[in-house]
């Protein structure tokens, strides 16, 4: 039996930063990962957007922390993750979107976000070539940005590894032995572990893992596809988000990475409830049609690659960050709804502070994202 202070299940968007901050705080940290290496679950499928522009105060708080961390990785640790504070631009071409965004601005500003309404002219300056016909403006948050998910997960793996975290790859959790409302041991394909705290950070597999301790959590993956183009000289600055649905899709968004490629993604309609991560032929025509309608000059880009990833969805579009009453040493950091990459660094830092502290830190987050909420409604900017 191997013992540790914190046993993190999942070396992904959440588990990697959490492992780093736990190890850095002096906790003996072990990470179990079923894939062959870090970030190979859904982190690899993230397109790289990081925003604090949400409709929910808790998520805003976590992501502001994420932005502080990611934008400082190179300065603080010499690790380049291709961060760029390009901002997020939610565009509005109709009355409904404009009024919704304007209404949200109040919550967002109250939460301390640097965000405002901008004119069509300003939209054009930030993204020259965007369709102006019908454009009413949009909300722009210049401190949001984007970076490379792969470089970021590699950076956190490296930081965690150097801080003493122990990574166990190609290792699958098979059982968890409960002893009086406490996880006494975690059995994997390679061995048994006993831990002060067991953190379920298993993304798309988190419900399955929770079921090993007879805990039902409302996390169900749906599938999204994404793609990347060839690189061109910088022509647009922000992550562009169009949340106006059409017949076949919901929102879609794209940005130009530091290295020049345009990275894009779309939410299909109806959603595809599936854990299949193989590409389908419908994605490219679906998303490219909308992108070129919004931004005609994209027609001259070339699609280089596409891929499919999973959003571990909760019914209300908000994560579950919880210490369930039923099991005293279990922590849930699950249901990121496709935003694990942007929530991960901030959440890892805040959660590690709680795990390393008295256990009462950041209670506001645990109250808000409790497992015992009603899961009603849907976050507007999901």
């Amino acid at each position, binding site marked *: 039996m191997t013992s540790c202070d914190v046993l993190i299940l999942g070396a992904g968007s959440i588990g990697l930063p959490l492992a780093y901050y736990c190890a850095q705080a002096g906790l003996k940290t072990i990470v179990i990962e079923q894939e062959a290496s870090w970030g190979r679950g859904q982190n690899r499928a993230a397109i790289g957007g990081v925003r604090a522009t949400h409709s929910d105060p808790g998520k805003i708080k976590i992501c502001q922390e994420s932005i502080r961390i990611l934008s400082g990785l190179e300065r603080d640790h010499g690790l380049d993750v291709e961060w760029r504070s390009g901002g997020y631009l939610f565009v509005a071409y109709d009355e409904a979107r404009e009024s919704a965004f304007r209404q949200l601005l109040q919550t967002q500003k109250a939460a301390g976000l640097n965000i405002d309404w901008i004119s069509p002219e300003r939209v054009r300056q930030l993204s020259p070539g965007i369709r102006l016909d019908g454009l009413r403006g949009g909300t722009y948050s210049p401190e949001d940005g984007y970076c490379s998910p792969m470089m970021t997960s590699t950076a956190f793996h490296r930081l965690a590894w150097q801080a003493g975290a122990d990574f166990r790859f190609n290792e699958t959790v098979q059982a968890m032995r409960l002893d009086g409302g406490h996880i006494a041991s975690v059995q994997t394909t390679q061995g048994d572990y006993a831990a002060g705290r067991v953190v379920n950070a298993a993304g798309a597999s988190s419900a399955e893992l929770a079921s090993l301790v007879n805990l039902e959590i409302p996390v169900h993956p749906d599938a999204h596809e994404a793609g990347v183009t060839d690189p061109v000289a910088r022509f647009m600055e922000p992550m562009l988000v169009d949340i106006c649905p059409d017949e076949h899709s919901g929102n879609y968004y794209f940005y130009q990475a530091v290295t020049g490629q345009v990275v894009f993604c779309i939410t299909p309609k109806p959603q595809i409830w599936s854990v299949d991560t193989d590409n389908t032929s419908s994605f490219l025509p679906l998303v490219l049609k909308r992108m070129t309608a919004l931004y*005609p000059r994209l*027609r001259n880009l070339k699609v*280089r690659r596409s891929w499919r990833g999973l959003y571990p969805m909760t019914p209300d579009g908000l994560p579950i960050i919880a210490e369930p009453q039923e099991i005293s040493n279990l922590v849930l950091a699950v249901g990121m709804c496709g935003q694990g990459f942007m929530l991960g660094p901030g959440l890892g830092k805040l959660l590690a502070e709680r795990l390393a502290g008295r256990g009462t830190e950041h209670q506001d987050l645990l109250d808000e994202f409790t497992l015992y909420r009603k899961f009603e409604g849907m976050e507007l900017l999901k």
Partner: protein
Amino acid sequence: MQRISEHPVADQRPAKPEVSFTFDGQSLRGLAGEAVSTALFANGIRTFSAHPKDDAPQGIFCANGQCSQCSVLIDGVTRKSCVTPLAAGLDVRTIHGLPELPAEDQAFTAQPPQSLSCEVLVIGGGPSGLAAAVELAERDFKVLLVDDKAELGGKLVLQTHKFFGSEADCYAGTRGYDIAKKLEAKLRAFPNAAILANSPVCGLYKDKKAAVYVDYASYQLVDFEAIVVASGARERSILFKGNDLPGVYGAGAFQTLVNRDLVKAAQRVFVIGSGNVGLIGSYHALQAGIAVVGICEILPKINGYKVHADKIIRMGVPVYLNTTVVAVEGNGKVERVTIAEVDKNWQPLLDTARSFEVDTVLVAAGLSPCDEFYKQAVKFGFTAVRAGDAEEIAEASSAIFGGRIAALSLAKVMGRNVSIDQAWLDKREVLKSKPGAIIPRLPIQPSTSWQPIFFCDEEIPCNPCTTVCPTHSIKLKPKLGSIMDLPYFEGHDCRGCSACVAACPGLAVSLVRALDEDFAEVQIPFEYPADRFAIGDRLPLLDQYGQFLEDAPLVKKFHNKKYRTWILTCKVSLNLATRVIGVRIQQPTATAPLAAARFEYLPDEAIVCRCERVSVGQIVRFIQENAVTDVNQLKSLRVGMGACGSKTCAVLLPQIFRKAGVDPATVTAGTIRPLMLEVGLGEILAGSGGAAAGTATAASATTTSKGGLK
């Protein structure tokens, strides 16, 4: 213009109209329809672009649409020059830094991709794909064959040499490009077979669709019930400092430029690798009037057929065994290659280094199967078979059988009542055999009647000499009982017709008869330009291994049109007659090294990922600093993230992991994702209007406008 106007065996292609285009504003001329890269080479331009990352000069590498090193800006958009046809007025530009996205801001109307359907999709129109398609078409399957080249035949198109094997089974004695035409004609005769040439498959999707990039202009989706993956092989890159310099490229790329496009691509070449590709590539260079300075081989023996090697060695080209390339250097282009012997751990012994002045280094260090679509199809649970090099790297002759066998096994899986003839399986095995024993031949005395003299002394699958002899006087010595056996002359009934001399793919048969006590006549095959020789000229005659025998007068020359081979008859000294088999065409001075080796040994600077320019040293350091055991993690370094989609670097990575101290057997492989090559957004959305869809075919593939949005 650096074009080949006189070639001994390649056809001068139907005249293409000359057109004007510009390169960085300079007005140039090329042939309409030829690859832009070819037109640039013909104008003496071999550096096409500067890499956006570090401005390193970029030239051609694969000439096969696989890598992306030959990219240029064509009318403002980045394109691979090797698969973009030249048209009048093209504005071709060097890429410097990242290209600007053209500001075309007028509204764009998207169309769903056009749909095609078939029962069996055959990916690849080389020998195995064509053979498979014919078998399937014969059994009434609705077949769609797609190929990435404008001309069907795969690598056969580049193969100007005569084929081994047997005439009856695989067109032995016929030149590769002629075989391609025969196979294509067979397929085109079937109304239930459709062909899309110039149209690579760029992706397979889980919903059982294949994306085809029709004419490199329109993205179309194909429904199918089963797939034959016959997508051939790609050349392996190898690692040495300077492996990315313009002028270092694949032997296949060289054959494309020289044999297909008839461009004199180089003046002096050095060849890495002594397999059949390297040997034949060297021979093709000599035929095109290009000096071959040497061949190096890291193994202790020549890797290809001995008859191929003999043809090269005979011309005075040294083959350096146990030797590797340590550096290719020059100011923005290849000027010098340095080789050195290796120790038993394959490490170069730098004090044995020798440098040569060359302008081109051909990489012929082996092939890797293009089997990605097969692997994906299997993963997706599709009905799929593979054939040819995509299944196993071997000769085109065995690929023809492989294609037929794969087709029948597929037909069987799809419920047809077929059985596979055991003889086919046997023949395929023989045709893909590695060379067998070398059995030295005993000296033969000339007699007053004609007799064939054989210079083939290694067992290879080949027998045309036995089948073309009108008196059936040439037989195989029954040792192995297959066409691997060596031929011999049985009896005395040789009429001196020279059919065997002309048909021998190895140029390893002569005919000799004594004229008197001092002289003999000898007929030898000749595959270099012979128009320059007049009767009475004294030709420098060589033995099997290039030893000079004598200058002897040419008494007759005859061009065998069927085999496209000259038969030269010379009057030679009787005592030398049975040794004569070649005419020197390259002067020995061509192969001399520099007086002293001149190089820097910096193996860590070798480029692994050509698209993103990542070196050996960078990857080794990254693996060590991050404890990497998963190829996917190298994407953080951008390895495999470039335009080619890791098609070029993937095969090099195991040795890099080993160098970093990680056992490659423990390393997780990289994930394959569509697209397999870049396709324009506008092209994906062009519907049927984007290109003259299927121009290359008498398409009977049904075209339905089902739309792609589901």
